Structures are given as structure tokens and as C-alpha cells.
């Protein structure tokens, strides 16, 4: 009896200890009931973006105020998410089928992953095609003929910012080729100047580097989708070459020595403080940085060119999006608010407040006055697909984030990084069979 009782207590205690990490894995299936849409409508929007488009919070508050004035029965509550919390928070909400009505998504796989999991409704079911065709970069959020999330603002991904005053100290010109970049790193180091400031502790920068360096070696987006599904390999030269470029940057001490200690935004601040000659920033953030250091001192360009592929020397272009959740009781109202975000007056206000380009071809480009933004706009007009949006997020995190940390920290070399990436991809092909099937279908639309 005592023995059985003891075992029962043991089991109960162990269950209590593990509740936090275990209960989460199950998928409840409760769904909200349809309600009368003419009644009071309370919408919740989980979003992100203030981090890369300063002023977005004010703009959103103002937009909601105007919208609520126009629609007195609708009220919208917003929750600004952290960078690290944006995805897990939504996944948890999706598991409970309870949470926001409108959710922020980065483009491509970040949007489609949740579409495939049934967590979102296609926006093209609620926003007319005649309206959607104006939204920029919607192709990357399109699957099976439907647009799943609606582009909000364009993210030029990702320009190199340089400080003319700091480069001048070492008599270095802004490098436009890879060889010139490595030479610039040597020259700047000789003067005791950090060539490029970055932070990779939180991993995100690994995905950026993969995209802006890796894109130059591939022939098309379907190469990336094929490597994901196993038709090609991440150890193939065109996919693996970027690791070699990254190792070259490491070997030429192009980065700040504490890169592994700093988060993405902390690294960029080093540049703003004049402690580095260059950095890589979100295009939506260019205005903020330029104003911080002074218009005369800042320059903007694409990542120096090393490859001969169609995307070499071009800036990536993606759009940050908003989607309608599968469990919302008010999909049409949510869609209507998204359309309101694209009205000319709101787009102009968005650009004036944040300096980020609205993802809409009806945006009045005459509003662009800052020289650096004009350069950026011209770069993004001829933009290339943004690579990170076309690989599984798990691969991005486990390979690009993690292996970049190890390579830049000096623990592994380019060959090991490429080999690790392929091994991780192989495992994902095994464990994420549904996702791989979707990738194969998605790849067809890029052939």
C-alpha cells in the first residue's frame, strides 16, 4: 500500500514539475462562434515593427483612432510584441485558437507557414483582387492561388549603411565589390577602426547575412526551394559559397570583436555612435539612422558584389504583412481595417512618421526627400527576392542563426557550416513532411 501510495505521489509531483513544459504541446480545438457583425466589434491586433520602423506605434494608434471614429461600433486593441516573442506568442495563441484577430507576419515562409497550419484565413477572400494587386511583394505570400497575408510596408533587405566621415579617416571609399570590401576591412583595421558593426547573439543577423550574401550565388528562388526539399543540397557550391564569403569577412576581421555578445540592434548602435565604418540595417530604419548621424555623414548601398547570379549587387525586397487569424469572428472587419491602412492619407502619414515605404504602388513617391531614401527606393524598385523568406524557419534558426554564431566566433569553418546546414535540412525533410510537401507545391510557382 505504502509503495503504491508513494508511486502515486511520485507521479503526481513529477507531473506538477513538468506542467509548464508539457501541457503546451497539445492542440486544443475550441473555436469561437459566429456573432452578429452589426453589434459592437472588438478587434485585437498583435504586431511588431516599432523595432525597425520607429514611429510605427504612434501611426498605428492614430490610424486606429481615425478608423474607430469612422466605425463607432468597432474598437481595436493593439499589443506590440518583442522580436523574440512575436512568433512563439502567435504559435501559442494558434494552439489555443484564441488570441489576435489581426496578426503581423514577416513575408514568405513566415506568413505561409501559418497559412499551411490553418492559423490564418487568406486575405484574398476578404480583400478584392483589384485592391490587392496594388500591394507590393504579395507574391511571396501567395500559395495555391490565394494571398494569405496583406503587405503593409516594404522592407528593403538589407542595405549597408556607411559613415563617410569614418571611412575618410582611413581613406577608404565605400566598397562595391567583395575584393574592395575585404581590402577596406584591412585598411580600417590598420587605423584601429571597426569596419562593420553587427550583433549576432540573438541570431537574427545570421538570417540577414545568409540573404544578402547568399542571394548573390544562386540562380533563382527555385534553387533555394529545391535545396530545401532535397532536389539540391546546401553543400552545393552555389548554396555553400556564402559561408566561404562569411569566413573571409571573419578572417579579415571585418566585424566588431564582441559581435557574439551583442544583439542585432545593439550592434547597429555601434555604427550610429561612430564606432564603426559600416553596418547592415533594416531599410525601414534608414531614416532613423541617417538622422542620428547626420544626413551629410551617412551613405547607403547594397551589399558589395561577389557573385554573378541575377541577384548579385541587388537589394532584397520583401514586405512586412498583416493577416487575419483563422479563429477571428470578424474577418471582414479585420480586412476592412487592413484596407484602411492602405488609404492614401494613411500611407503618406506612415511614410512621414516612420520613413518606411508603404507596400503599395499607389504611394506618392514624391514624398521621398531624404537623399539616402531616394537611393534606397531606387535600389528596392529593382529589388531581388529576400532569401530568408524561402527556407523553413527551423532551418533558418538552426543553421543560419546558429552556424553563423559559431563561424563568426571562430569555432567552425565554412565547410563545416555548409555541412551542418545540409544535415539540419535533411532532418527537417524527415520531420516536417507536410511542410516539405507544401514547399514542393510552392516551388512550382517559382519555376
Amino acid at each position: 500500500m505504502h509503495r503504491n501510495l508513494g508511486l502515486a505521489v511520485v507521479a503526481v509531483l513529477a507531473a506538477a514539475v513538468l506542467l509548464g513544459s508539457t501541457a503546451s504541446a497539445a492542440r486544443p480545438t475550441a473555436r469561437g462562434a459566429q456573432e452578429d457583425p452589426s453589434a459592437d466589434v472588438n478587434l485585437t491586433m498583435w504586431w511588431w515593427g516599432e523595432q525597425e520602423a520607429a514611429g510605427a506605434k504612434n501611426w498605428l494608434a492614430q490610424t486606429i483612432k481615425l478608423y474607430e471614429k469612422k466605425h463607432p461600433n468597432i474598437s481595436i486593441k493593439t499589443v506590440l510584441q518583442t522580436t523574440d516573442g512575436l512568433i512563439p506568442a502567435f504559435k501559442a495563441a494558434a494552439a489555443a485558437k484564441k488570441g489576435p484577430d489581426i496578426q503581423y507576419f514577416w513575408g514568405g515562409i513566415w506568413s505561409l507557414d501559418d497559412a499551411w497550419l490553418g492559423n490564418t484565413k487568406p486575405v484574398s477572400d476578404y480583400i478584392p483582387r483589384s485592391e490587392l494587386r496594388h500591394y507590393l511583394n504579395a507574391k511571396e505570400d501567395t500559395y495555391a492561388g490565394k494571398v494569405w497575408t496583406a503587405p503593409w510596408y516594404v522592407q528593403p533587405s538589407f542595405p549597408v549603411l556607411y559613415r563617410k566621415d569614418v571611412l575618410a579617416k582611413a581613406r577608404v571609399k565605400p566598397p562595391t565589390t567583395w575584393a574592395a570590401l575585404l581590402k577596406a576591412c584591412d585598411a580600417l583595421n590598420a587605423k584601429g577602426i571597426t569596419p562593420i558593426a553587427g550583433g549576432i547573439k540573438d541570431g537574427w543577423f545570421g538570417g540577414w547575412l545568409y540573404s544578402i550574401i547568399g542571394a548573390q550565388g544562386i540562380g533563382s528562388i527555385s534553387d533555394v526551394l529545391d535545396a530545401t526539399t532535397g532536389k539540391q543540397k546546401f553543400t552545393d557550391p552555389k548554396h555553400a559559397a556564402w559561408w566561404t564569403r562569411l569566413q573571409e569577412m571573419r578572417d579579415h576581421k571585418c566585424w566588431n570583436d564582441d559581435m557574439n555578445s551583442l544583439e542585432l540592434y545593439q550592434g547597429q548602435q555601434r555604427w550610429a555612435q561612430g564606432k564603426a565604418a559600416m553596418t547592415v540595417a533594416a531599410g525601414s530604419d534608414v531614416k532613423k539612422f541617417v538622422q542620428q548621424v547626420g544626413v551629410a555623414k551617412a551613405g547607403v548601398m547594397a551589399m558589395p558584389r561577389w557573385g554573378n547570379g541575377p541577384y548579385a549587387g541587388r537589394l532584397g525586397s520583401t514586405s512586412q504583412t498583416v493577416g487575419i487569424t483563422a479563429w477571428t469572428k470578424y474577418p471582414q472587419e479585420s480586412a476592412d481595417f487592413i484596407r484602411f491602412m492602405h488609404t492614401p492619407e494613411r500611407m503618406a502619414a506612415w511614410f512621414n512618421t516612420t520613413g518606411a515605404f508603404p507596400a503599395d504602388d499607389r504611394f506618392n513617391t514624391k514624398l521621398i526627400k531624404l537623399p539616402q531614401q531616394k537611393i534606397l527606393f531606387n535600389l528596392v524598385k529593382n529589388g531581388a527576392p529576400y532569401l530568408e523568406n524561402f527556407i523553413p524557419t527551423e532551418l533558418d534558426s538552426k543553421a543560419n542563426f546558429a552556424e553563423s554564431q559559431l563561424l563568426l566566433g571562430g569555432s567552425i569553418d565554412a565547410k563545416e557550416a555548409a555541412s551542418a546546414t545540409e544535415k539540419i535540412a535533411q532532418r527537417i525533410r524527415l520531420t516536417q513532411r507536410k511542410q516539405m510537401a507544401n514547399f514542393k507545391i510552392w516551388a512550382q510557382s517559382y519555376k
Partner: protein
Amino acid sequence: MTSGTVALSDPRRRRLRLGRVEPLVWIAPALAVVVFVFGYSMFQLVRTSLRFEGHWTTDNFRITWSDPTFRTALTHNIRLLIAVPVLVLLSLLLSILLFEGLRGWRFHRWALFLPYVLAIPVIGVVFGQLLQFNGLVNQFLRAVGLGGIAQDWLGQPRWALWTMTAVIVWRELGFGIVLFLARLLSVPSDVFEAGRMDGARFFRLHRRITIPQLSGVIVFYVIVEAITMVSWVFNYVYVMTNGQGGPGDATQVTELYIYQTAFQYQSPEIASAAAVMLFGVTLVLIAIFFRVQRSSGVGLDE
């Protein structure tokens, strides 16, 4: 003479005795609550771990076990167990020093316990800043001519887990000290006086008297901390590595693996299989605790 004795001698009470099942009756309300709260979760967890695309299978366990990241995470949890004896020894030493009336012991007790009441995210952020490659710790080392030992404490795979272990020890130490000190203060002073009169000095006194007196709480502390290292270090890792378990997978632990797999990579089946395995390990640790407690006759009631 106790009220219990009176009750047992009361014939009306004697009729209420239910023999071997009586203990179960007494704990039934609490058990019902626990089963109600955890039962469904556990059932779903095990069920999910045995399902894939609508079929029953044990593949999820095989796939999880074959994942190098999962094995790395498990290895790191085991490596973190090294902190347990360190915690016990340090807690023991410091609590004895405080018990012995170390000058300013009230302040020291407060200072040592303070980390334990600090929120883990606060600790994570503060140490994350302090331990940067150009952070305060390294700045100090360089200033005193010890720049050679300055490291990227959390940014280098070689150091990251050990650094995190040190932070965990720093915080968890306070719990051990307060636990041991509370027990020491409840031991009648004449026990120690008798020892001293018999000629026992510091080392002998505490080896022969203090440690045996503390054995119950030491066992308790060891088990609690072992469980912490196996299944409660998520907060530390998440905050100090921005949810990555990096650099690379240098600080990956099982809980973070479960969290990432379930919520970032959308593989609830694999996450559940990993959680069931972690549950098994925790179950073993708790069973060991009860076994040791029973066989040694030590317990918290001492």
C-alpha cells in the same frame, strides 16, 4: 498524551477507520485536484507523443532520440547537474559561517539571499550585459592586468554553458543557505555546547553534529536542485541567449528544445516525445528522493 491518542481511544472514531485505504481517503481531495489539473495535460501529452499524421507510432521517440540537438540538450542538462554538489558545499559552508555568528551576519544573510528573490529575467539581462566581451567584467579584468583571461563568456561555445552554470549557482545558492540556516537555528543550542565541551573544534563539530542534523534538508535541497537543473533552467537559458540556446547550440537544454520544437517549429509530436522523456527523467529523480528519504530515515520533519 495527545489529542490523537484521545481520538484513537474514542469508539466512534474507531468505526471510521478504513484500514489500508485510509491514507488514500485522506489525500483524495488533493489528489483529485491534482489529477483534474494535470491529468488531462498528461494524457494529451502522451497521446500526442504517440501520434503522427493520424496514426499511432513510436517514431516520434525514435526521431527525437536521433536528433543531435536533443542529445546535446540532454547532455547539457546532465552537465548542469555538476552544479548541485557545488551548491550543496557552498550553501553548507556559508550557512555554517552565518550560524557561527560571522561579523555582520545579518547583512551577509540578506546579501546572499537577495539573488534568490530577484526575477530570473532581471538576472539574465544584467548578467547578459556584465558578461559581454566588452562588458564590465572584462573591463575590470583588463583594468587590473588580467586581460588575458577576459573571454566572451556567453558568446563562445567553450564558455557559455559554464558561465550560465555560474549564474545559476549564484542565484540558487540563497535558497540553500536559508534552508540550511533555518534548520541549524532549530537545533537546540545545547547539542552544539555539548560537542564543544567534549573538545570538538570547528571542523569536527560541524562534521559530526551539523551535517547529520542537516541531512534531511540536504537531501531535499539536492533533489530540488537536481530537478531544477534538469527541468527548470529554461528561464535562464531563454533570457540570457534570446531564446536561442546559443551560440550554436552551446546552451541548448531540453526544456528550450521542447519549447522551440512545439512553438517555433510546429512539431508538437516531437516536442511531446521529448517532454515525455524529460518527464521520465524527472520521475526517476523524484523516485530517488523518496527512496533515499525512506531508506535513510531522514526527512524534513527532523
